[in-house]
């Protein structure tokens, strides 16, 4: 609220000096722009660009995070449960997670081309090591008593993985995904800013050339809202699916 008031005052002050100021457009102008963006279709293609950008970005985000979550869960379980795999893979994953993902972006563009694959790959590469490390840690933290108990009930390693470890780290996976969504957005917008034909990040960096602050701000507010809603949905999902995890698990 305070931020909004400060912005309104700042915007007011600047426009009092120069009515054509573009840096801090009036809140009313942003609302007008937002209305235009949300409802009017592009003259050339006939699509409403705003929704098209949102769809394209969300699809990339979902794919990237989905792939990362699957990999993180699989490798996290293996590394956490099987000492042999842990000895072989854990140091490798640690080193891998040290590579700044944005530094490999050019490699991805060169190898995978400028299409969708490289953007999804950047998100996946960016957050998978974090997920693997976090989840393998959680699996390793399961009380040894539980594993022994499962063994005395005749469980194989597979059964322990599927019935004891997997369900117990699922809420942890959702939580880790929530934590890594911030980075996922960062990688998405960075990839889109450099090479894309649509997407929220692409649009922001495109209109930057025209100093169209009203458009940029609309998109930023929209991205924030999306991120907030996704986070909230994941939290509700965790509570709904894993009631035993309790507040402590969130």
């Amino acid at each position: 609220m305070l931020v909004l008031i400060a912005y309104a005052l700042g915007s007011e002050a600047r426009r009092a000096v120069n009515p054509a100021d573009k840096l801090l457009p009036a809140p009313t102008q942003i609302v007008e722009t937002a209305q235009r963006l949300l409802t009017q279709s592009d003259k050339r293609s006939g699509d409403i660009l705003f929704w098209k950008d949102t769809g394209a970005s969300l699809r990339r985000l979902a794919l990237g995070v989905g792939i990362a979550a699957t990999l993180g869960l699989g490798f996290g379980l293996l590394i956490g449960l099987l000492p042999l795999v842990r000895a072989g893979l854990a140091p490798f994953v640690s080193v891998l997670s040290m590579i700044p993902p944005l530094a490999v972006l050019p490699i991805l563009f060169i190898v995978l081309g400028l299409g969708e694959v490289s953007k999804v790959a950047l998100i996946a590469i960016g957050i998978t090591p974090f997920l693997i490390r976090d989840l393998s840690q959680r699996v390793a933290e399961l009380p040894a008593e539980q594993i022994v108990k499962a063994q005395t009930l005749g469980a194989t390693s597979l059964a322990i993985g599927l019935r004891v470890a997997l369900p117990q780290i699922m809420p942890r996976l959702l939580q880790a995904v929530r934590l890594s969504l911030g980075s996922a957005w960062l990688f998405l917008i960075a990839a889109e800013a450099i090479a894309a034909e649509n997407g929220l990040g692409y649009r922001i960096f495109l209109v930057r050339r025209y100093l169209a602050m009203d458009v940029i701000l609309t998109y930023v507010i929209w991205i924030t809202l999306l991120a907030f809603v996704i986070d909230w949905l994941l939290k509700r999902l965790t509570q709904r699916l894993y009631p035993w995890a309790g507040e402590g698990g969130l």
Partner: protein
Amino acid sequence: MSYVEVSNVFQSYGTRPILERVSVTVEKGEFISIVGASGCGKSTFLRLLLAQERPTRGEIRIDGAPPAREPDRDRGVVFQRYSVFPHMTVRDNLVAAEALGANAAGYLFGQASRDARARADLALERIGLAHVAAQYPAALSGGMQQRLAIAQALAAKPKILLLDEPFGALDPGTRLKMHDFLRDMRAETGMTVFMVTHDLSEGFKLGDRVLVFDKIRWDPQNPEAYGATITYDFDARVALPPPAMLEEKTHVH
């Protein structure tokens, strides 16, 4: 041949001996209490029985089977904590006792699953947990959780039941109720039980025999130089030795 045979077992961690020359035989259906001062290796002995660890020397055979390399279905276990699965409901915890070992993936399907659930509900009825069948263990009191853990271990029909200070975390009143519960369960199943406890009276009350673990050799300069062994094997079914003598002999207070 006895049901459980422990022959000349040594266990050391690195150069540090924990157990020395432990030999004992146990008949089917006996209730063995294991007592001793802290750090005397009674929990190590239980882990050896459980096959969670393998002895440095000697071997443990149950029902004549070759020594186990990993915990298996022959051994049921209840720990002081973490013995039930927190992500399964009370009923599913009992079903898991059958399901986990049913196949490689640990899932039961169709009729087998329905049968297991019916058996679980019967067992819950008997141990007085039927009213919480759909709840998660976190919602249960400590005593109820341990009752569930014992029922879960017995549902897998093990050859021996191992209890590692099962009532250590419970308040005295609950503990007394659990003693009755354990006696009933044992009378019903005729199970061979090993129970580690640090409470002498509990050990004598529940056990047929009480094994005392202690160090027979003691180097004041190097207290860790020697391991412990079984120093006394009381028959708890006959008259008890006077408490003062017990304390002196067992070094348990």
